[in-house]
């Protein structure tokens, strides 16, 4: 069955500390992986997609097909990174997105 697992519902770190938000997926084909972010009272917006292989706001994510993971990392967290982060995948370019339940990241000063 298609599934995205984000094991941490809540994650707190201090400013300047490294942060890693975990994501594992279950899908038989070759999915396209995404991280979406939702800042307080704002809409879901794309943070990263695995095919772009880019760093946005200092965040990176590497697709590990062997472990079926797409963890989101940032070496030095900032207070403005506090938000809800959703991992998602789709099986085709026009297909539905499958979301994880989200991880609420809080970065303390």
């Amino acid at each position, binding site marked *: 069955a298609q599934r995205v697992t984000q094991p941490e519902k809540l994650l707190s770190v201090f400013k300047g500390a490294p942060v890693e938000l975990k994501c594992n997926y279950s899908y038989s084909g070759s999915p396209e992986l995404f991280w979406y972010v939702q800042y307080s009272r704002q809409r879901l917006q794309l943070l990263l997609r695995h095919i772009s292989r880019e760093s946005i706001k200092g965040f990176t994510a590497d697709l590990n097909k062997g472990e079926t993971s797409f963890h989101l990392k940032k070496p030095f967290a900032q207070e403005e990174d506090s938000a809800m982060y*959703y991992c998602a995948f789709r099986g085709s370019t026009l297909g539905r997105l499958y979301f994880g339940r989200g991880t609420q990241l809080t970065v303390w000063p």
Partner: protein
Amino acid sequence: EPEVTQTPSHQVTQMGQEVILRCVPISNHLYFYWYRQILGQKVEFLVSFYNNEISEKSEIFDDQFSVERPDGSNFTLKIRSTKLEDSAMYFCASQPITDFNIQYFGAGTRLSVL
């Protein structure tokens, strides 16, 4: 920057009533989606729409739900007879046909069924 617009931001209705949630996708986008998120749960896919017909629907999207693109700009989700369990945040998304073909989300409509 263009955005997906959803109205209303909050809709309160009585059980059994019909509701229509409205979305204005980004103007050059051709693929449209509805998702919902029940409080404390995952964002779940409802339906996708292209070329004036449903492309895909989930098991949630039963006969009580329908979608329509009544004109060139609006994309609506209708729930015929609302149930308490329909209370959720409903998100509309649209996607272009370009190299950067990602889904752009609206801010959502919070539906409260009493």
